[in-house]
């Protein structure tokens, strides 16, 4: 038994990355960011509002949170819709009560299936982020360029129909094809939330220019902590608070820091979880030296300062 000899060859072993999308740099080597008002810490809250189709195709894989049982999986279908019928309204009430702003990442299918919700979100004036067609429309190599471009433009146009053209993009399951960043930039998007390899925004090269990558703190997501790790709601609050404390401490002695937090209407909007979100929002509202801003403001602050 032996392996093909190319298994011991390393054609991309070179200084920096093994691709050409961005140069390597360590966070501490970069020029400091500047947030609005020169605040040391910026927090951004993104609420995902999602539609999981009943006739899931699962290409190229079954989306986390998707249908599980034999067709028709009414159990998971309706439990996800709970987020669009009940959870999101609870979240909006909690945000408003705390006076903390958030941004909303919407599947195009949510706009079509829940028009009252879509109009209400648009009327708030908060940033709306394109989140693909729906949760079973995963971007991957098998789509082909034309289909993927059509998906991206359709998701963009669905948001444009209810408000300003979206500047930001979040792929379903943060899954990209090798072309997604190029097509996003060509469709007019200025930033994407899919790459989780940093704590600061950075420039990401595309075939016709560049796009800003704004990283999310995936391992602090409500879904990851409470549904994947099965940690308690209180533990989630503790973990996010510990992160805020640590980043505040670094920001007070070094350069500014950023915490981006993604939550899901169908997760944190549940009756037994919303109190944890409220507790966190109250803590965030009470922070000094912190500003809560949208991902677009993060991206544009980065670009303005670059």
């Amino acid at each position, binding site marked *: 038994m032996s392996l093909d000899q190319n298994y011991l060859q390393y054609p991309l072993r070179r200084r920096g990355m093994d691709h050409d999308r961005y140069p390597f740099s360590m966070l501490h080597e970069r020029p400091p960011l500047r947030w609005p008002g020169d605040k040391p810490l910026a927090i951004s809250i993104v609420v995902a509002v999602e539609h999981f189709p009943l006739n899931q195709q699962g290409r190229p894989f079954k989306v986390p949170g998707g249908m599980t049982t034999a067709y028709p999986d009414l159990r998971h279908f309706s439990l996800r819709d709970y987020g669009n019928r009940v959870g999101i309204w609870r979240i909006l009430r909690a945000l408003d009560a705390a006076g903390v702003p958030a941004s909303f990442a919407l599947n195009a299918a949510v706009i079509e299936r829940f028009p009252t919700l879509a109009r209400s979100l648009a009327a708030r004036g908060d940033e709306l982020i394109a989140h693909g067609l729906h949760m079973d429309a995963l971007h991957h190599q098998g789509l082909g360029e034309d289909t993927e471009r059509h998906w991206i433009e359709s998701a963009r146009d669905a948001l444009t129909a209810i408000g300003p053209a979206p500047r930001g993009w979040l792929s379903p399951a943060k899954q990209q094809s090798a072309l997604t960043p190029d097509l996003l930039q060509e469709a007019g998007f200025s930033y994407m939330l899919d790459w989780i390899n940093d704590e600061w925004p950075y420039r990401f090269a595309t075939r016709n220019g560049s796009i800003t990558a704004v990283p999310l703190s995936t391992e*602090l997501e409500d879904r990851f902590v409470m549904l994947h790790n099965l940690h308690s709601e209180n533990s989630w609050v503790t973990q996010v608070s510990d992160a805020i404390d640590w980043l505040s401490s670094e920001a007070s002695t070094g350069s500014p820091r950023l915490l981006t937090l993604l939550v899901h209407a169908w997760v944190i909007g549940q009756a037994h979880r919303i109190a944890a979100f409220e507790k966190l929002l109250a803590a965030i509202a009470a922070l000094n030296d912190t500003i809560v801003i949208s991902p677009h403001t993060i991206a544009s602050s980065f670009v303005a300062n670059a």
Partner: protein
Amino acid sequence: MKSSLDYYVDAPYFQRPRIQWPGGKRLALWIAPNLEFYELAPPANPQRAAWPRPYPDIDGYGTRDYGNRVGAERLMRVLDRYPTRVSVSLSTALCIHHPEIVQMGLERHWEYFSHGIYNTRYAYGMDEAQEREMIAESMALIAEHTGQHCDGYLAPALTHTEFSLDLFAELGGLYTCDLFHDDQPTPIRTRSGARLVSVPYSLEMNDTIVYVVNKIEPRRYGDMLKTHFDRLYQEGAGSGTVMCIPLHPYQVSHPHRIAAFRDALDYICGHDGVWHATAREIARHYLEHHYDVALVAT
């Protein structure tokens, strides 16, 4: 396949010749950050997929890249506050991709040992000559880029063959971190008779096992480290023990996890009977003072 590779023999924990650490210390503590490089598009291995998602798996790749862009420096700044000694399990291609990280470790007098070339190139399926070439090249990269002799080995992504440890010993290796059978160093029998020391690493205290496999809460990990230490420190009064804290900058350095680790380190370093050592120092001391006795005793 064999039912056992017979690397070690039975040696009941409380009936062994006493291990004495320098200065009468009770417990040898070593910190083992895994500094790794994962490739976006590695060649396929017949027995293990590099990524769970199809190309490009930006979720898995991005998770690891975070460790190099953000996590490594954050971990260094924490470790800088303590007298701990650090021995790095190194994806040796990192010397070429990100020499600035390796240099920051050298400035801190860190030891480097081999963790293969990439953590996306597995030993599974290699023939003996291929694995020897891979291990030898990784050792050569450490020599070339750090000036250190590579004394230790932890197989890339813990992928082994029946020959991994034999090959490393024959190539001049001193210690292996690949076996989890003990809380003390032990002799490892190799086919050539070359002397090889097993230095306890730990899967139970490994942040990736803790956070990814066992899905432990950060503050509980801090408590586990303290409890693990307490028992080994207590037992170390009778015969010297080893505690290793294996870390990954893409796990422990997240801002919601690093304080729990710092608190545990604070607690552990408050004890006088701790020998802060590198894995090389532990292995050399054991080889010089205890290895032959342990062989005779068994």
